[in-house]
């Protein structure tokens, strides 16, 4: 994984939300923390080109988010803060197959890939269920399956354990820890990222801290107090 920000800045309606940022990420597990409104989601969206830099440049594995948006999104999958809006077709297995459309696989290959990814997250029994009826934890796993079926190199997750009960939170946490992909995880649940390789802390649209989890989290606690 190779994510680079070169003086990249994000603005909404003229207001700077992420100040020019230069940064290079290559560790396998990266946590992102910070207060509400500090710019975490915007930063994450800049990585896969859902938010484009107003000035500067962002590249992912060598692809520029402005020039090669589709390629960047092929490299970096994204799980939204609200997985509900991420599942697009009414039946889970059909939704997961939809992500594979652009790969032009045969029907049998598509079906095999869908079954494999559902089994990987222990939700094979949900294949034929209506998405509308799934619980929060089931939806989160379904969103993971729908994104990882296309085999991105990097997975970005925006507060994946938000709104989950204790049991589902444990389940999703264990699932995240078991992932082989590179991950960038935004979380207010500090326990989730304590054993990550690197943690970034945002404050008022700037990268305020960057380093090993223990120290960054300790300083974040002081900042928040």
């Amino acid at each position, binding site marked *: 994984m190779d994510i680079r920000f070169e003086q990249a800045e994000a603005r909404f309606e003229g207001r700077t939300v992420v100040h020019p940022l230069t940064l290079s990420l290559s560790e396998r597990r990266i946590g992102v923390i910070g207060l509400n409104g500090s710019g975490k989601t915007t930063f994450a969206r800049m990585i896969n080109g*859902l938010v484009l830099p107003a000035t500067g440049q962002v590249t992912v594995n060598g692809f520029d988010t402005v020039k090669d948006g589709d390629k960047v999104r092929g490299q970096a999958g994204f799980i939204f803060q609200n997985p509900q809006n991420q599942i*697009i077709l*009414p039946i889970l297995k*059909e939704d997961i197959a*939809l992500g594979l459309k*652009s790969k032009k696989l045969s029907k049998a290959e598509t079906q095999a890939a869908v079954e494999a990814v559902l089994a990987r997250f222990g939700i094979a029994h949900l294949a*034929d269920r209506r998405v*509308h009826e799934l619980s929060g934890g089931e939806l989160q796993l379904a969103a993971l399956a729908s994104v990882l079926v296309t085999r991105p190199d990097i997975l970005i997750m925006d507060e994946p354990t938000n709104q989950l009960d204790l049991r589902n939170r444990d389940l999703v946490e264990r699932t995240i820890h078991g992932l082989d992909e590179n991950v960038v995880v935004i979380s207010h649940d500090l326990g989730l990222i304590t054993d990550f390789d690197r943690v970034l802390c945002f404050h008022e649209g700037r990268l305020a801290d960057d380093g090993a989890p223990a120290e960054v989290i300790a300083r974040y606690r002081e900042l928040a107090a």
Partner: protein
Amino acid sequence: MKTLYVEGDTFLHRLSPRAKLLGLAALSLVLFLIHSPAVLSVAALLGGIVYSSLRLGWRQSWLRLRPILLTIAIVAIFTLILNGREDALIVVTRLTALALFAATVTATTSTGDFIDEITRLAMPLERLGLVRAADIGLAIGLVIRFVPEILSRYQAIRDAHRARGLKVRPLTVAVPLIILTLKNADEIAAAIDARGIRAQK
């Protein structure tokens, strides 16, 4: 609205979605050209036989068909009052036949297959440069997926009014509903991009 598809492996499940959709279109044309109550009754009876071959059971069948049968009953009552018994009988038998055959098609065609077929049928339009065929299929999938979501949001807003003792007025319900729906639409659009579903080939 929910998906009405029923998992199964009957002859009708295996029939291609195109054959079913085109067959249904042809049948409805024929039904509207026929004006004999006797023939239409036979058609309705055939529809009933085909539908019951899906073996859904009485309860399931009733739940699925109830909305459309109620609609037919209302139309029939008005026809009876305005046009008399003969016309009412024609309306009931014709619409019942149509409803039963259409319900059979929806119960034996998965949303995915349905979308693929619509996409294929829209290909000529794509060649004319009018639309991207895949977008039409995607749009239909999105409607089926998010209508229940919007309905449950409507219920939540209505409950919020009740809980706070506010009167449920169309305007005070519609405004938050529209805002929430548009906000969601933005996110759904972002998700479609993020998952590369509309990626340029």
